[in-house]
């Protein structure tokens, strides 16, 4: 295996008494589009800032392409950052903003001119060279920030909530563009976001952070299909949690006594677990119409919400509320509040996470 682009080993960051990042181990592969995902205050931005050198780790080792960078100041690291508010220099033109890093490295003038023109072309801002940042729209400023970082040919590009300041339409366009840009320049992108859809749609791999800890690292499908904890399942998409206990290998007894099959991954019998069931994985039938060979649970429709492309039902089972999302297809039966129904699911539709809160 080749040297990882970024490698955290037992990295901890404390601000006074507060632990912002708690012994994180993480390897980000070269050329990867990696997302650090988590709610605000989970330590994802601090992790990014430690890669950039804007914050220094309190403990542990941080390597960029195999080289220890722990105590190095930002200007000595082969990485560049796209800041959340872009942090463009207001007194410099677009061309001077983009050329700033090269000028600081004392690259010769002709070379700077050539590479700046190239970078401005790359982000499609030709003709804007002489403008000041405040004369550009938010989306254009975002591109300048990208060009200003990429022109230095960093080995790793860091992006702090790069799309948060853009409006929804622009954000979706930029998602595709960023992805295409990353493929074009072929360098490692590490980006921080609190938006799970953004992470799922853009990243090759995602690291989910919560409460200063790195909870799970994996491809978007893995994170979505096999969340390791209730927190991850809840943060990535929506999920129902059905409490139960492990009855044996891949056998679980739900709190209402129903025996179901699910991946218990080595948990011993009697362990409290939660079964995570995504709303769109819930199968909904009229009472008694569920397949006879599957365990099914009876309940009543509490509310039905029409979303255009889907119906969202809130179902009252005898011991909990369940959310179900049913694609709106012509053949699909619809239910109304008060209807008596049965729910079931396929064995591979669920994930098992540690129980309790």
């Amino acid at each position, binding site marked *: 295996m080749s040297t990882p682009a970024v490698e955290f080993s037992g990295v901890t960051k404390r601000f006074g008494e507060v632990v912002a990042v708690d012994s994180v181990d993480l390897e980000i592969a070269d050329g990867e589009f990696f997302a650090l995902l988590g709610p605000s205050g989970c330590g994802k931005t601090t992790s990014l800032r430690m890669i*950039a*050198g*804007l914050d220094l780790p309190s403990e542990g080792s941080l390597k960029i392409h195999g080289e220890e960078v722990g105590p190095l*100041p*930002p*200007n000595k690291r082969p*990485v*560049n*950052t796209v*800041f959340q*508010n872009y*942090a*463009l*220099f*207001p*007194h410099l033109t677009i061309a001077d903003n983009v050329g*700033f*890093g090269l*000028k*600081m*490295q004392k690259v010769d003038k002709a070379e700077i001119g050539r590479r700046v023109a190239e970078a401005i072309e790359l982000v499609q801002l030709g003709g804007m060279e002489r403008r*000041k940042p*405040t*004369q*550009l*729209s938010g989306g254009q400023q975002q591109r300048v920030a990208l060009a*200003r*970082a990429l022109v*230095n040919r960093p080995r790793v590009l860091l992006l702090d909530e790069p799309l948060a300041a853009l409006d929804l339409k622009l954000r979706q366009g930029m998602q595709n563009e960023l992805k295409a840009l990353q493929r074009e320049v072929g360098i490692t992108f590490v980006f921080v976001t609190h938006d799970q859809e953004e992470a799922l749609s853009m990243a090759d791999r995602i690291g989910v952070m919560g409460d200063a800890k790195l909870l799970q690292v994996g491809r978007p499908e893995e994170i979505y299909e096999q969340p390791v904890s209730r927190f991850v399942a809840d943060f990535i998409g929506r999920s129902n949690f059905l409490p139960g206990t492990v009855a044996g290998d891949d056998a679980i007894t739900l709190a209402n006594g129903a025996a179901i099959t699910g991946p218990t991954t080595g948990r011993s019998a009697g362990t409290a677990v939660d079964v995570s069931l995504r709303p769109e994985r819930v199968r909904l039938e009229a009472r008694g119409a569920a397949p006879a060979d599957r365990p099914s649970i009876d309940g009543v429709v509490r509310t039905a919400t029409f979303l255009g492309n889907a119906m969202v039902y809130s179902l009252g089972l005898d011991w909990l509320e369940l959310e179900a999302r049913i694609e709106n297809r012509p053949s699909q039966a619809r239910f109304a509040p008060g209807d008596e129904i049965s729910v079931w699911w396929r064995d591979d539709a669920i994930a098992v996470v540690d129980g309790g809160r």
Partner: protein
Amino acid sequence: MIRGWTARLLGSATGLVYFFLYAPVLLLVVFSFSADRNVGRWGGFTLDWYREFGANAEVQDALRISLQVAVVSTLIATVLGTMAALALERFRFRGKKVFDALLYLPIIIPDVTMAVMMLLFFTWSLDLVDTVTGFTLRKGVGTVVVSHIAFNISFVSVVVRARLDGMDQTLEQAAADLYATRWQAFRHVTLPLILPGVLGGALLALTLSLDDVVVTQFASGPGSTTLPVFVFSLIRKGVTPLINAVSVVMLVISVLLVVLSLIAQRASSSDEPATE
């Protein structure tokens, strides 16, 4: 009806304010051209007092010393004041709160107190230098410059801090991320962005230095009479319209400085947001 009254009342109040502000200025300018030796009695138009201003060696010396003191003390106070502002806004260190409070002291304490402090300090420290090294130093231009630097640092740092406080710190982080050393980040990002504040502080310092009488009088010695101190002494000797002329010249210099600082601020606001 009430609106009419209010408007009239406000209007006359405004008129009075302007009258009391500018009537003295107008009188000063007018009587600086009066031929009568008595200040405040019109004796026909003359430029004699301005001629005397140009010819009087004492006045010329005082003006030269004033400008020297102002320029040197402003340059030094601007550098030190900006450094103090940077230290307080960008760094954390032990005793920062105390340093902060001490820095403001010269703004708060009365001029006379400052002046007496300076007098005591210079007398005591020059004596000390004398007994320790055998060099006899006297109060003069040097001590005046030092005293002006002492109070100007505070004013400069207040103005620069206000500007630094309004500056986005991520810009400095961005500069560091783009391979700038601390010095390069200051030189290429911080300084250009706070320059209007630095210039404003410098012009304020220049004005304060040119205007100061009280502190200067206590800190000066033979051969270091500044223009305001000279004017003050003229009044005690017996007033001639010469001091009108001198005052007009000082007025013109002050107005020029104010206009300059306005231009500096105008120039800096040109990189404020433009609409798309």
